[in-house]
């Protein structure tokens, strides 16, 4: 890809979010460039997950703007005035974004293959045979080519999470969000899931935002690391910037606790 400066694909401008009286995010400003791999780290309850849930339209910001390819996600103009986005507006933008959840959220009433095929066929109205081909390829890529007709209940947690990634990838999103995708897994299954993410990060050109506690892994694959603390981005930069050059004491304490080296 050329070196021209790319317009950010996602922009957060002074985004705040409260749940009742609890202020979770207190002014987030953030740029994500196309293809950029961003890791969001920070203590529990710092609002990491809330950031990507707002981008996936699962949570509405209390104030501030989120732009996706220049379009305001949560606001639209109606008769010259800016109003709250309706479902149609959200749907138009949301199609470019995919998400993998902590608890997989596979559809239990569908086979693995149907889990992958249902959205491209029903939502994007793509050709069924083409989608089947692509889904099979994707499931083979995540190492589950032999489980096409199995149901989610027959898989291990790691396998389920790999299906969830295949399901998101088949939609060909421009932005992929990973919400603590290894947190619900048995320790011995974490590796297989991380391998798939590493493979996606290396070979696919979509932007990725990872919320994770797998610190070494995050620092390894991320172009940019955000350290979120008490509702604000306390530190951001390349992995080496953040680890080696940051003076932020809370970050250093946090890293010491979570890193194995």
């Amino acid at each position, binding site marked *: 890809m050329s070196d021209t400066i790319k317009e950010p694909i996602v922009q957060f401008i002074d985004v705040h979010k409260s749940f009742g009286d609890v202020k979770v995010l207190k002014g987030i400003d953030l740029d994500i460039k196309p293809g950029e791999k961003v890791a969001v780290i920070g203590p529990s309850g710092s609002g990491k997950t809330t950031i990507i849930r707002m981008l*996936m*339209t*699962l949570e509405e910001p209390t104030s501030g703007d989120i732009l996706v390819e220049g379009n305001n996600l949560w606001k639209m103009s109606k008769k010259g005035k800016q109003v709250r986005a309706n*479902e149609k507006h959200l*749907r138009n933008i*949301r*199609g470019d*974004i*995919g*998400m993998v*959840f902590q*608890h*997989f*959220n*596979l*559809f*239990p*009433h569908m*086979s693995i293959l149907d889990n992958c095929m*249902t*959205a491209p066929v*029903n*939502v994007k109205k793509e050709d069924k045979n083409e989608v089947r081909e692509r889904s099979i390829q994707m499931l083979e890529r995540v190492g589950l080519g032999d489980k096409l*007709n*199995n*149901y989610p*209940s*027959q898989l291990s947690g790691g396998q389920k999470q790999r299906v969830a990634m295949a*399901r*998101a990838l088949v*939609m060909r999103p421009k932005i992929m969000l990973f919400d603590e995708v290894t947190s619900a897994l048995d320790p011995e299954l974490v590796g297989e899931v991380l391998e798939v993410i590493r493979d996606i990060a290396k070979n696919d050109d979509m932007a990725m935002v990872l919320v994770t506690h797998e610190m070494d892994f995050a620092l390894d694959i991320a172009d940019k690391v955000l350290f979120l603390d008490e509702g604000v981005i306390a530190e951001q930069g390349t992995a080496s910037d953040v680890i080696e050059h940051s003076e932020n004491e809370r970050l250093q304490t946090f890293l010491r606790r979570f890193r194995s080296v």
Partner: protein
Amino acid sequence: MNYWSWETFSEALPMVLQGLGITVGLTFSCYAFALLFGFVWTFLRRIPNKLIHWIVTWTMEFIRSTPPLVQLFFIFYAWPMIPGIGVTLSPFTSAILGLGLHFSTYIGEIYRSGIESVDKGQWEASRALNFSVFDKWKKIILPQALPPTIPMLGNYFIIMFKEVPLASTIGVAGILHMANTYGARNWAYLEPLTIVGIIFLLLSYPSAILIKKLEVKMNTRFDKKAALENVKKGAVM
């Protein structure tokens, strides 16, 4: 044994059976009405508007807390007398409307419990995959919400079947009505009413067993489907 006469029994049987079609037909009609109208309640209650929610909730509560017999009488006798909106309905139609509406409030609750049992993550995944509202319900939510409610819905079918004789009070000629008519004509109630009891037993009991079986099937449905697939694959390999 002067009380019981097999002669009366065999004479009353064909007459009572004449009402069977009406009883069974009314049960199915009421049930179909209740199943459909249950959806109306369920979705009305999901409208995110406090006033509508309040009105719908209390209407349901009202219908559920008044006896179905009173509702039947109201629809059949009282409603036609209301100027403007009053309509005279046949006994059969009144019964479908009255019993169907009454039971639809219970069935609406069953749907609601089914929908609420669907994991929050399923809604979020449908959102993340950008499903339209219609497709989300059709492909993701209802296929998971409805199957577990089938045993409960089945129970209500049997309960409703047993309430259908109420319709004889407004002149629907089901088996109870026929038995009563026979009794009044011949001054012999024991045999015809016994026949009515037996018919209800013969129809309810097997239905209950069927529903039990359905329940077991529902609880193991995903495992079974998957097991079948494995058997097929095994046969190919």
